[in-house]
């Protein structure tokens, strides 16, 4: 298929940036979206120009690195997938595709489609862990009985890969789905409940300091999340925060 691509080009974080038009031809419907980008970059390199910078790593939907906003949606038009899992069969011959970086004040553009998501790392560092005594007397995790429902919900929350699609798609650039998932995956398990109060207070404080917006419950994050993280995690974070504060 032949496509017209309108891709955000930005030399560095200081550059104003703009959408630039590219044409690609003979794109197979079996290609992944990132493979199509690779083909385009080869064309650009052959012309002696600067290739388009974009984040990618595992290319199997688990690392959370790819981060494109495609035709007005994080990770493109399909549901429950990352950009690397998006295939060209989701588009038609002759389509024009808009490709932009994830937008948020807390996700500044580094170059082209690459954004700085280290704000997520700092939120994680502020509380998304458990303190374990490694002196040799550590209790075997499998020896602690956990209700099946709690284990399942914690596992669902833990599938968050921290890609930032929730922030990118939120009209307020809110990170509450991400933080809600991280708070939940520990709050649901006995190992995490010991530090639950400090964790939620510190993570919400860090989230606010990073400049993310407020959640207004549009639910867009839940729809666009490649791992199907539920809004129930935001509600749980709110409860945990109120319980820890009051």
């Amino acid at each position: 298929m032949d496509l017209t691509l309108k891709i955000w080009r930005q030399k560095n974080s200081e550059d104003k940036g703009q959408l630039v038009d590219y044409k690609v031809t003979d794109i197979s419907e079996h290609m992944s979206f990132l493979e199509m980008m690779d083909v385009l970059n080869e064309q650009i390199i052959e012309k002696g120009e600067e290739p388009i910078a974009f984040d990618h790593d595992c290319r199997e939907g688990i690392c959370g690195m790819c981060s494109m906003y495609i035709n007005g949606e994080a990770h493109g038009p399909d549901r429950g997938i990352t950009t690397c899992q998006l295939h060209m069969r989701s588009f038609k011959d002759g389509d024009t595709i808009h490709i932009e970086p994830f937008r948020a004040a807390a996700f500044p553009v580094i170059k082209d489609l690459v954004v700085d998501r280290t704000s997520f790392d700092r939120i994680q560092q502020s509380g998304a862990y458990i303190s374990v005594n490694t002196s040799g007397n550590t209790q075997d995790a499998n020896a602690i009985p956990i209700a099946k429902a709690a284990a399942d919900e914690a596992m669902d929350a833990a599938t968050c890969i921290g890609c930032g699609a929730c922030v990118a798609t939120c009209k307020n650039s809110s990170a509450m789905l991400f933080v809600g998932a991280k708070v939940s995956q520990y709050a649901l398990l006995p190992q995490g409940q010991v530090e639950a109060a400090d964790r939620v207070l510190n993570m919400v404080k860090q989230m606010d300091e990073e400049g993310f917006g407020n959640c207004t419950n549009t639910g867009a994050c839940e729809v666009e999340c490649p791992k199907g993280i539920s809004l129930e995690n935001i509600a749980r974070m709110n409860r945990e925060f109120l319980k820890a504060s009051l």
Partner: protein
Amino acid sequence: MSGFISSSIARKVSMALSAFFLMFFLLQHFAINLTSVFSADVFNEISHFMGTNPAVQFALQPVLIFGVVFHFVMGFILEIKNKKATTVKYAVDNGAANSTWASRNMIYSGLAILAFIVLHFVDFWFPEINTKFIQGDWSGMHDGELRYFHELQHKFANPARVIAYVVAFFFLALHLLHGFNSAFQSVGANNKYTKGLKTFGKLYAILIPLGFVCIAIFHHLNH
């Protein structure tokens, strides 16, 4: 505690709590208005009680005004903070693919409701304050009978006012369609009852504003 008050979650929760209060107020306001369709005397009696009872006038009324002002001011504060969090807009943003128009435009439906409240204050509340607190007339009487039902009919005789009511309550319905369940989510209530609550919220969001509109049209046609 200061960290709690300035946190994003505390702002969400305070918006939700003021919303619960306003939604309850709306329900009782509707119930009182509805009596005007069935009995002028009952409407007059209830209106006179609400307009002259010291507990309503000096305790509940200030709480109501605080609730309204707080909800609007906090709404604007949240909007400003959210604008700061999204410095660059997308060239193409397909919001309709993942969320409702009502949920994405609460600030605009809220502004339409604010415009209506200004009209309602000029129409109803300022004359009431003038009659009771400046002229000192707490009798509620006019030409030998309680004045409230007559005033209500007189207001809705003007078709422009009825049209303004219809438009305002359309935006109120949009605001409630998202706001009702959003308030529950904000206070952390997302559980096995949420599905049923969403259905109830949609019915509330449509039927209550529709009821207000029907009452206005009824009095316009029967004045």
